[in-house]
């Protein structure tokens, strides 16, 4: 890139560092409660396909918070070096991609497994266990475990959403949505066990297929968003693979300020970087934040604007 005038913001504002720390604390709680769910569900798994699928989904639920914590730590503490001159702000995007691939792959495997169980008409056995001298149908314990598994994610998901929006964090946002939607998995799981209890052998596998389809759907949506970032696509919305509203407004603002230029936007983690092709930086430069079209306190999102003037015809022919 020749003739570049770059103005960069080196980090997050202190208010956001505080929000990031709050999100990290919440993710530690998330991991703790998810572990309790994994243990409770694991104790009553039995032969139920629904329970197995829900248990794997709960276990997978650990991936986004762990990826987020690693990414946040590297982003906050990672030193810029000769080997990593841009720091680690894109670790979040990498974590998002890995979590998305793990989700989609597991969803696809579980969907295949449930479909095969349905096709082969395998009947799941759920017998009794003896607890405190009483024989109890294991299905009751499975239903209890599913109810328990619905509560912490619902609360944590709601708490995560506003933090994810403040931080423009797709990984945290995906985790929040997955957690928030977990009641659906729980309800499907309970319906599967209730159906099994009623003697509907197919209910268990059908509920498992429904849950796996949900996992696969989440994974594919996340893959579309995360790959867009990794291949320098225009910033996508937090909860959809469509272009983000902030990016659309920023592009419009830059086009208005610098008519006749070509605008390229990309996202590195939670930050947006813009390139204005076809002009020099204005003199005096009004500052990067001045180009932000939305609320002032969100202007940290725009980390850098680079100006790339057209190369003279003679230079271009020499290079060719």
């Amino acid at each position, binding site marked *: 890139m020749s003739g570049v005038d770059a103005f960069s913001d080196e980090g997050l504002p202190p208010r956001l560092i505080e929000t990031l720390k709050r999100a990290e604390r919440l993710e530690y709680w998330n991991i703790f409660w998810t572990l309790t769910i994994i243990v409770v569900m694991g104790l009553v798994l039995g032969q139920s396909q629904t329970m197995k699928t829900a248990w794997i989904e709960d276990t997978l639920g650990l991936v986004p918070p762990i990826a987020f914590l690693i990414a946040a730590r590297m982003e906050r503490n990672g030193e810029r070096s000769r080997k990593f001159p841009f720091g680690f702000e894109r670790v979040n995007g990498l974590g998002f991609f890995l979590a998305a691939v793990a989700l989609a792959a597991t969803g696809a495997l579980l969907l295949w497994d449930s479909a095969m169980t349905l096709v082969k008409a395998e009947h799941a056995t759920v017998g009794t266990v003896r607890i405190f001298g009483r024989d109890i149908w294991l299905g009751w314990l499975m239903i209890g475990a599913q109810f328990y598994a619905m509560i912490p994610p619902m609360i944590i998901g709601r708490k995560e959403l506003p933090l994810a929006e403040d931080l423009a964090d797709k990984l945290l946002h995906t985790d929040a949505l997955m957690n928030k939607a977990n009641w659906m998995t729980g309800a499907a799981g309970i319906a599967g066990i209730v159906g099994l209890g009623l*003697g509907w052998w197919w209910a268990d596998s059908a509920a498992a297929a429904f849950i796996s389809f949900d996992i696969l759907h989440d994974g594919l949506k996340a893959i579309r968003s995360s790959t867009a970032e990794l291949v320098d696509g225009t910033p996508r919305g937090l909860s959809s693979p469509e272009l983000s509203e902030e990016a659309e407004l920023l592009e419009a603002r830059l086009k208005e300020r610098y008519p006749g230029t070509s605008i390229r936007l990309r996202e590195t983690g939670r930050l947006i970087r813009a390139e204005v092709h076809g002009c020099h930086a204005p003199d005096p430069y009004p500052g990067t934040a001045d180009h932000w079209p939305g609320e002032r306190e969100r202007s940290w999102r725009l980390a850098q604007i680079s100006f790339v003037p057209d190369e003279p015809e003679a230079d271009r022919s020499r290079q060719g």
Partner: protein
Amino acid sequence: MIAVGALFLAACDRFPSDPEHSLDEIRARSTIRVGAAADVPPEASSLLRMLETATGAQARRTSGPVEPLLQAVENGDLDLVIAPFRADTPVSTTNALSPPIRTDGKGKNAIEWRAAMRNGENRWISLVEIKARQVAGNTK
């Protein structure tokens, strides 16, 4: 959620049910079709007596090699097979096995006498499991 709750309340007294109605059919025909090896321990007879009392049906025994008997259970031609199994038997994936009613030997080579039922017949399986625990408890 409401639909699940309603389903749940309506279903409570039917839990668990047999997809192939094993227990209902045993009661209707007043016969428990049992497969067993020629020589069974006294605990097997105790289990059958308890099941006869619980179902109001008479046990009718068929003897023969274990594998064909297990296949007959899987096909729904028998209700129960009482046989000796190793602790790590692969049968536990093809048939539902009750808790052991008697264990001969110790450690990895222990032989456990169990009842095998058709997979998924959860009401019938639950009844056999409960009675098998009682038999095992009575002999301790």
